[in-house]
């Protein structure tokens, strides 16, 4: 097992002349909950898409659990779970049918027992035979978490996981994230613009600014480094306006 769950080395992504991400260098230790902050369009989703092998970088490398994602993308995909922003499913299929499909794609040949285990873990067994089309945003997000952890990944990527959720949904999701990290030892990488979420769940943070990583440190060190500031929000705004550190 590698010391670092996630490593990005000189990672860049360009779309024509537009630079979405420039020279990202990042190391996240195994077992951490990392929060990537930034304004809309700062490059957070591009970063997640590159780290999850959904996009190919223009330059640089991604290494997950010691596996080079450019050379062995399928090996990396076996050890990661991914929950995209506003996760969607096949609405005319049930929870079980959707999860069975994604479980099989992850290599589980007889997935039903594992699906039930995951749904029990997420306290979602009452809806396993309901069609996903009738689900609320919060319920979809639970199915989204289920599909991401079916194959017991060691690294979990969550892109804006609390986006559009009501306060109760946010609270439930936060509990799930903490349990996945503490009980199952998953490394969690979370994109968010909700500073309150980062304060409550993350052990380290990064701040993206115009496609570049402007700041990266543990949450504890961050709070210590800005002794005069009373909240992460004011620290975030200070870093945002100061530029790269």
């Amino acid at each position, binding site marked *: 097992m590698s010391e670092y769950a996630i490593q990005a080395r000189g990672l860049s992504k360009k779309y024509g002349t537009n630079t979405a991400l420039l020279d990202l260098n990042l190391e996240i230790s195994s077992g951490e909950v990392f929060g990537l902050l930034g304004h809309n369009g700062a490059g957070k989703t591009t970063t997640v898409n590159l780290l999850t092998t*959904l996009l190919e970088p223009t330059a640089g490398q991604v290494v997950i659990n010691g596996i080079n994602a450019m050379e062995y993308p399928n090996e990396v*995909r076996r050890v990661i779970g991914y929950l*995209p922003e506003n996760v969607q499913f096949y609405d005319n299929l049930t929870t079980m049918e959707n999860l069975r499909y994604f479980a099989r*794609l992850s290599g589980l040949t007889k997935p039903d027992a594992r699906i039930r285990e995951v749904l029990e873990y997420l306290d979602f067994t009452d809806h396993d035979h309901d069609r996903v089309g009738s689900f609320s945003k919060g319920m979809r997000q639970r199915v989204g978490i289920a599909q991401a952890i079916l194959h017991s990944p060691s690294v979990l990527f969550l892109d804006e996981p609390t986006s559009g959720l009501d306060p109760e949904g946010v609270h439930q999701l936060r509990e799930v994230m903490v349990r996945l990290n503490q009980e199952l030892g998953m490394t969690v990488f979370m994109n968010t613009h909700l500073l309150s979420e980062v304060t409550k769940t993350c052990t380290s943070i990064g701040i993206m600014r115009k496609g570049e990583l402007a700041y990266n440190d543990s949450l504890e060190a961050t709070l210590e480094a800005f002794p005069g500031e009373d909240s992460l929000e004011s620290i975030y705004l200070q870093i945002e306006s100061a530029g790269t550190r």
Partner: protein
Amino acid sequence: MTSILAISKHELLSLRREKLPLVLLVVFVVMVSVSGLIGWLTNTTVSNVWNKSTQAGLTNASNPFENVSPLYYSRNTVIYLVLIGALMAIVLGVTSTMRDRKARTLDLVLSRPLSVVEYLLGKTIGVAIWLMAVLATVGCISWASVAIIIGKPLGVQDTTRLAGFYGIALVFLMAFVFLGMISGIYASRETTALLIPISVWSITAFVLPQIGTSANPVSLLNPVPSVAFPGGAFDALNTLFRPLSVTEQFKGASGWLLSNPEVTGYFIASISIVFIATALGLLTLLLTRRDRIRGALND
């Protein structure tokens, strides 16, 4: 292999849950069944008239259906395949690749350990199994219809020819499935995704044969390929464009398999063109890049 199987199963499950492919399937099966009924009615009516005329001493001619191959009664199925079958195949193809784009599930799928080739092959196999089931159903209806019309089961040779015809029909329809799948990947809107392959189909089925044969548009609805008058401009255009009209080539190959005496041309050439068109479609599909598949819709 597990991924390909999973995608194929998912494809079949999704097709079962969607209305449009089911509606097209029913229309297609009904048309073929009606085709059998029309054949039976034609045979019965003409034979009754011939019997009465013979008994009344009005004719010495033999029954016009006496020396007709039993497969003659299935020949209208050819045109149903060219018209409804090809459209059904296009819809199946577009639906297949458009489904994940519309549902926005592609990132969930592509974050799994599978290649683009596995993903597209899985979809292809799923649709092919669906089409095989449709054609097997239609083939059984055809076989039973002919058996009822001639009053006895079809012989081994005719049954083999009928099976061969539906086999070629599967290859022919897969060419349009691939056309639909490619359009479903590259089009930025769902309506465009359907419009492009339907335009290609109409050019193949109507425009190309017409400019090469000066055929009356209505005659293009016949199950027999249109033939240019020898010599002259149309014959020259026919030489140029006929190979491009996969539908006319399919008519030619089918006519040969269904023992249609009106068919001209070379069976091997016709069947080769159908196979080449399908193989080119598959190759183009499998060359699709990963980032292309993730393309967002503008709908």
